[in-house]
């Protein structure tokens, strides 16, 4: 997502070698598709405001005739919603901070420093991107069990501080490589060390890439289900995804309340998405991340 690429993309986005008619058809198709994409989310919100008695009523109502905002206040007491919300934050904040700090540091070393064997280590970073999580799932669980960390947030948080993920290291290294070296040379002549150059020269110019990493990581950890499923056993410790899954098993007939709780659970990600929207839609292009 270098700045040049953004500008170039905008410039080429102009009219294509196709007539006004085909453009009109394309616009129509794109709008229709967008409506299809929005329908499930709209249905979630619509259901969340209905009285349970009208949830199954036909014909379907998109705008509830008797909207019931109390569903939301009830949903957050049917399950300890705010407790789970807080737990999710307790995990997400240190994970995002740890990911950013450690992936920036590691990526900087790989992008700019010379040391014997460092190139080979970078190949291992790339290999780590390809590794499917399932292969390490069971032994990692056994490791954290041996350490006595099962039932705590440590297995969810600590790995983020150990490099911050191969993909993020790769992304940041690629970004750092696009920064011209001259300023660093000047800072070095002034007597600044590596850490000082990282703080004063590299990081201030890398906020676009760093915000991509932070936003992706937040969404990833906020929605993570497998990690909490493996490592959290006490209901008071559940994060939101686990709490919702648990809620489903018990109150699976109360769809309106379930949708209210789900909508609330999605809210932080939607918020982060709109805040870092540009970073997202262009970051996915830069990185090929899915």
């Amino acid at each position, binding site marked *: 997502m270098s700045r040049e690429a953004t500008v170039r*993309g905008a410039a*080429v*986005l*102009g009219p*294509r070698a196709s007539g006004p008619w085909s*453009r009109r058809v*394309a*616009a129509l*198709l*794109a709008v229709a598709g*967008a409506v299809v*994409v929005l329908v*499930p*989310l709209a*249905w979630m919100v619509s259901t969340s405001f209905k009285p349970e008695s009208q949830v*199954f*009523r*036909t014909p*379907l109502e998109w705008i509830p005739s008797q909207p019931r905002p109390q569903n939301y206040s009830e949903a957050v007491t049917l399950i300890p919603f705010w407790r789970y919300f807080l737990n999710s934050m307790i995990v997400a904040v240190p994970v995002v901070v740890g990911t950013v700090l*450690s992936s920036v*540091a*590691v990526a900087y070393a790989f992008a700019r*420093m*010379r*040391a014997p064997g*460092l190139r080979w*280590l970078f190949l291992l970073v790339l290999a780590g991107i390809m*590794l499917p999580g*399932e*292969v390490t*799932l*069971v*032994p990692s669980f056994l*490791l954290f069990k041996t350490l006595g960390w099962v039932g705590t947030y440590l297995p969810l948080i600590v790995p983020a*501080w*150990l*490099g911050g993920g191969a993909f993020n290291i790769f992304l940041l290294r690629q970004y750092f490589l696009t920064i011209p070296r001259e300023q660093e040379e000047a800072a070095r002549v002034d007597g600044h060390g*590596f850490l000082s150059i990282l703080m004063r020269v590299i990081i201030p110019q890398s906020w676009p890439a760093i915000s991509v990493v932070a936003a992706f990581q937040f*969404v990833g950890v906020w*929605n*993570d*289900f*497998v990690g909490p499923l493996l490592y959290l056993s006490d209901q008071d410790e559940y994060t*939101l995804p*686990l709490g919702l*899954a648990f809620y489903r098993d018990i109150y699976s007939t109360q769809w309106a309340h*379930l*949708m209210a709780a*789900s909508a609330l*659970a*999605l809210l932080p*990600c*939607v918020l982060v*998405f709109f805040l870092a*929207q540009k970073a*997202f839609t262009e970051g*996915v*292009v830069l990185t*090929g991340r*899915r």
Partner: protein
Amino acid sequence: MNASRREALAAYGLVSPWLIGFLFLSLGPMVASAVLSFTDYDLLNFGATEAVGLENYREAFTGDPVFWQSLRVTAYYALLAVALDLVVGLALAMVLNTGFRGVRFLRTVYYLPAVVSGVAVALLWLWIFQPSTGLANEILGLFGLPPIRWVYSSTWVIPSFVLMSLWGVGRSAFIYLAILQQIPTNLYEAAAVDGTGALSRFRRITLPLVTPAIFLNLVLGVIGNFQIFTQGFVISQGGPGTSSLFYVLYLYRNAFSYFRVGYASALAWILFLLLLALTLVTFASSSRWVYYEAGRDR
């Protein structure tokens, strides 16, 4: 201490957290799961663990019909999901690339499903797929189609999951879009002057130039879709029967419900080797169909 040694020390200082993580959370567990796959390690009965050689692998391939079922279900899902994602993703990217007003806003909409994933969205789809007056059946009804039992039917459960995954097609469309936007307009203009039809322009210009993105989406799509778990766990719990018992769900059950860690480790390695093989085959075939501008003309 001279400058280059100081630099090397500083570099290793900076990468050391990653190195520790790699050794203990990637490489170590990988080796450990390989070793465990040759044992009958039981989570509840660690003391009785014995080496069993290739027994776990033999059991999977010749003595466990559920293993084959889970592999079949997962491959079926992944094949459909990846194929539709490629076709619809490319079509969507071409539509978005025509450059009409408001396209930026639409791109935001299309990306939204990618950020709202996990359990909340799984619950939403479960609600949509309710057989009695669920939204999906209501929409079928609008077209005069009979209702379907969706995730409650062993025939429709996998197509239902594919439909869910297609909801997130915006992600791969963005990758295509990035490439489409870099195709020089004059290529199309020249072709139009030559009297080349739209279909032919697509086949001769667009398609060859987006093959690198198709390749990327294919590799990532296969790896990602073979690992489907959360949706199956939350929505269908593998059912009805074993008709949506995805591979990783079966692996998870072996490890944490049946406590058969040795067998689960063998399953993990089989999946890993399978994905590796699929990736390598895709890479090997890429020289035949992926077009790189810098390379030779085809």
